């Protein structure tokens, strides 16, 4: 691959509109900077990061380019996407934590149980708030459909419905199969069942991701009133609080399991000493942390736009953005 072609490939990290405006001169700068040397990994990474940042500006996740309403909407959608990630990681935690309370010594069971129950309660509360948020936006969605907007959201919505249908059918099939297996077979002894379970889990994740995408595509197009956006802002605060509670609850549960029943985290025999580290739990926790960061970012964005709307962009303009 020629150096020029390699640099052009790097430009793909940037949004098309930006490439159209700055692409040529940016390429010239990269060529001048490299002076014929091949781009290092660090160089590429920094270009990629700058491109992603530019995309974030274009999507109004960063910066003040978009209107206040759009910025607030983007903040709300960040919280929604964060919650979708939280649902996926929460489902993974639920599967891992099955029968965990019976694994703990009776004397130390209560803290782990309390942490797990609090995590589950926060999960339910957050999901309910997301459902309420969707219901509040329904009238605006109906107005949008009546105005002929269906063709603009049809693809995203139908993809989500199709993915849901496939995942429900697969889950029903898996449940029917599970009835013919014993507990040992259901928990890893039957490799075919385990593989099918994994496929089902992936299908559910895809369905959640596609519903989230449909929500993002739709909310970006429908006209939400200031009042509705205000309610959604409060719900975003609630969902973010639930996200914090899930992360704290999961961390507490992990610490308790690591201290008193670390063998459970590895599925080994009771009482066998084992490391409190679990790769699967670590991936789940990482997803939760990503979700938490996104939710906090979204909430901060919502709060900032609310303040600007109340006190005026001029007053706060200098304080908020670098």
């Amino acid at each position, binding site marked *: 691959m020629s150096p020029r072609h390699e640099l052009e490939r790097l430009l793909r990290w940037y949004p098309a509109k930006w490439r159209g405006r*700055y692409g*040529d*001169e*940016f390429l010239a*700068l990269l060529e*001048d900077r490299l002076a014929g040397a091949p781009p290092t990994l660090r160089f590429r990474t920094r270009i990629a990061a700058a491109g992603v940042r530019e995309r974030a500006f274009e999507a109004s996740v960063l910066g003040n380019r978009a209107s206040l309403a759009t910025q607030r909407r983007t903040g709300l959608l960040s919280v929604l996407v964060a919650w979708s990630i939280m649902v996926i990681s929460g489902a993974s935690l639920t599967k891992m934590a099955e029968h965990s309370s019976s694994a703990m010594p009776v004397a130390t069971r209560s803290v782990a149980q309390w942490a797990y129950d609090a995590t589950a309660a926060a999960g339910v509360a957050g999901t309910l708030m997301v459902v309420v948020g969707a219901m509040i936006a329904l009238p605006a969605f109906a107005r949008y459909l009546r105005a002929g907007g269906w063709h603009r959201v049809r693809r995203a919505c139908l993809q989500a419905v199709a993915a849901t249908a496939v995942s429900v059918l697969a889950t029903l099939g898996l449940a029917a199969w599970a009835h013919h297996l014993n507990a040992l077979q259901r928990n890893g002894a039957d490799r075919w069942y385990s593989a099918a379970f994994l496929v089902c889990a992936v299908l559910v994740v895809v369905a959640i991701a596609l519903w989230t995408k449909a929500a993002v595509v739709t909310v970006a197009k429908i006209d939400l009133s200031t009042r509705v956006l205000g309610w959604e802002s409060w719900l975003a605060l609630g969902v973010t609080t639930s996200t914090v509670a899930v992360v704290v609850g999961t961390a507490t549960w992990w610490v308790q399991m690591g201290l008193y029943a670390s063998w459970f985290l590895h599925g080994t025999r009771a009482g066998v000493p084992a490391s409190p580290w679990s790769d699967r739990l670590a991936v789940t926790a990482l997803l939760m942390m990503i979700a938490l960061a996104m939710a906090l970012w979204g909430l901060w964005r919502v709060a900032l736009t609310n303040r600007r709307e109340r006190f005026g962009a001029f007053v706060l303009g200098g304080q908020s953005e670098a």
Partner: protein
Amino acid sequence: MLRRPNDPSLLLLTSLASGPKHGYALLKDVEDFAGVTLSPGTLYGAITRLEESGLIEPLADVDRRRPYRLTAEGARALKEVTSEMRRLANVGIARLRLAPGGAQ
């Protein structure tokens, strides 16, 4: 924008105060007067934001290299920020002189 002395946007405005420059010339100039090496991504991020804010404007490109120059608004913004920085620096210097064992 323009909050810190090493803010890329402020460095670019300062560089353009001495006349129009294209991307590579800006990088070199900022390196020379501030000792800061901006990455191409950071440079063009700042150029994008400054152009959107109307603080700089593009000129006709020469062999794909497009120079930029300060607008009147950009010059005004740079003057305001540097005046404020000078005021703060003067306060700091004056207080250091008054402090026990401070610089004389």
